[in-house]
């Protein structure tokens, strides 16, 4: 490990050079010198993102076997498969920073790593599939479009790949909602109910107001993020309110009001108590999500071990005289 990473104080000259590179809009690559703090922030941010993709497979995976027609069944299966792929891209990106995926997965299963708390909410009806694609993927896209210009090369590149795929998810979700909203009275009620339940948690996806977010300042300075949480949240609201109106669904916010001057849809207060409660582990599905991941991991151990054992045997055969 290079000496610079062991010193608690970063070399001021290298730090200045690093920050100048950031200011010039240069891409930081895995072998480049970087402050230990930058590396740590990125490992945290990227691994959280990867965990979110993986846990995110569960609420939607819940409905694959009940999708009401074959086209929707295949689309949902493809979407969940994409999410696994996204998790994989980002885990691989995180590994470029010198950490093993296994270590990261262990942190998730231990409960010491975080993931987006939106996935701690239950999916109760088929309409939730529409709401998730439209709102949750919609919010993720607003965030990820910004991250596609992140200063860390592997993260930015993973984001570009992901954004391409996620646009298709959002359109699918919105199409489901549109179909339901113009369907039978039961279907319309189903869609409105899903919107009622997923709206506020989607707004919470952007995180607390930056003044209450301890990591924001550093991430903005190092151009990992380029916009504040509040800015991104407002952008999402503006986009989405128009879409809801277009299909005849009502946003569950009595304080929602259009500001002619700023051209923003101003919204009511977010229940931050709920946000922190869910983040801290008391959301509706926190335990179930972790339990499901632990179960998959534990039940799959014999498979992973077998593959490793098989490979070891073949390696032994190829080099029987090696130590």
């Amino acid at each position, binding site marked *: 490990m290079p000496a610079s990473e062991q010193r608690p104080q970063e070399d001021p000259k290298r730090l200045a050079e690093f920050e100048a590179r950031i200011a010039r809009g240069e891409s930081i690559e895995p072998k480049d010198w970087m402050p230990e703090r930058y590396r740590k922030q990125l490992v945290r941010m990227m691994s959280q993102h990867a965990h979110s993709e*993986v846990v995110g*497979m*569960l609420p939607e*995976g819940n409905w*694959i*076997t*009940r*999708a*009401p*027609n*074959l*086209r*929707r*069944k*295949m689309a949902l*299966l*493809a979407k*969940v*498969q994409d999410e*696994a*792929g996204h*998790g*994989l891209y980002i*885990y691989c990106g995180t590994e470029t920073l010198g950490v093993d995926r296994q270590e990261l997965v262990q942190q998730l299963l231990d409960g010491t790593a975080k993931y987006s708390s939106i996935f701690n909410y239950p999916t109760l009806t*088929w309409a939730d599939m529409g709401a998730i694609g439209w709102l949750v993927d919609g919010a993720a896209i607003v965030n990820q479009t910004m991250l596609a210009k992140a200063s860390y090369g592997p993260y930015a590149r993973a984001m570009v790949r992901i954004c391409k795929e996620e646009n298709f998810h959002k359109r699918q979700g919105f199409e*489901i909602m549109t*179909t*339901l909203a113009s*369907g*039978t009275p*039961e*279907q319309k009620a189903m869609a409105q109910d899903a919107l009622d339940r997923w709206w506020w948690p989607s707004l919470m996806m952007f995180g607390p107001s930056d003044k209450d977010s301890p990591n924001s300042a550093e991430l903005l300075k190092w151009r990992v993020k380029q916009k504040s949480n509040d800015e991104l949240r407002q952008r999402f609201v503006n986009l989405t309110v128009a879409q809801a109106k277009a299909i005849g669904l009502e946003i569950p916010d009595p304080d929602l009001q259009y500001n002619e001057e700023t051209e923003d849809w101003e919204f009511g207060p977010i229940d931050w108590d709920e946000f922190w409660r869910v983040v801290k582990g008391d959301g509706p599905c926190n335990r179930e999500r972790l339990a*499901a991941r632990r*179960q*998959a*991991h534990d*039940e*799959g*151990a*014999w*498979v*992973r*071990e*077998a*593959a490793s*054992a*098989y490979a070891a*045997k073949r390696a032994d055969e190829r080099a029987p005289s090696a130590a």
Partner: protein
Amino acid sequence: MTSPVTGTPDVLFEYLLRLGDDRLVLGHRLSEWCGHAPILEEDIALANIALDLVGQGTMLLKAAGAAEGSNRSEDALAYFRDAVDYRNALICELPKGDFGVTIVRQFLFSVFSVLLWERLTSSANEQLAGIAAKALKECRYHVRHAGEWVIMLGDGTEESHRRVQAALDDLWRFTGELFLTDDIDRAAAKQGVGVDPSELQEAWRAQVEDVVRRATLSVPADVYMQRGGREGRHTEHLGHMLAEMQIVARSHPGAAW
């Protein structure tokens, strides 16, 4: 209604239904793994195979509905038929079990599928020949993937060897049904549309035995082969599977999704 032996629409409908139901049911079982596979790479791989199979099933059911001439769409066939009207082979509807069961079942079925599709690329029914050409490419990949895993697990650890041998032993009695021939098969073959599945058995056996050997496993002893799927006499598993699969569609009859 024309007799099953000579009436073309009847024969075609039944024949396509069997092909379609096999793949839809098996694809559905595979889709149950999404989010629960032993490793992320396998969540993706199994979902891929599931998608291919559900896709093939969809095209086949669509063609079946058209052949029937009653305007039943692929969705109507998939979501509004009871278990007794399903025509899949029993092996497809069995629960997914552990990863070993899934991968052995996938291997056994995929070897059969490739042999079948190879022949059906020359079907007199152009639509079926077209479906066969695409499905063949996909299923060759399924054989590679599943076969690789059978070998890795068979020749992996003691535990994996034991589990995969148990899976093979349990599934063996469902393999015979794939090669049974009845009037529908004979009629379809006579019309140049379909293939007599019994003709595929020898090649299937040879390929399966080869992989089983390389996996350091043993081919199970001959046993009475379970059957009934082609006549709608299924295991108890199919009813539960369809109850889950069909619930939303059936709760809103006539609705569009």
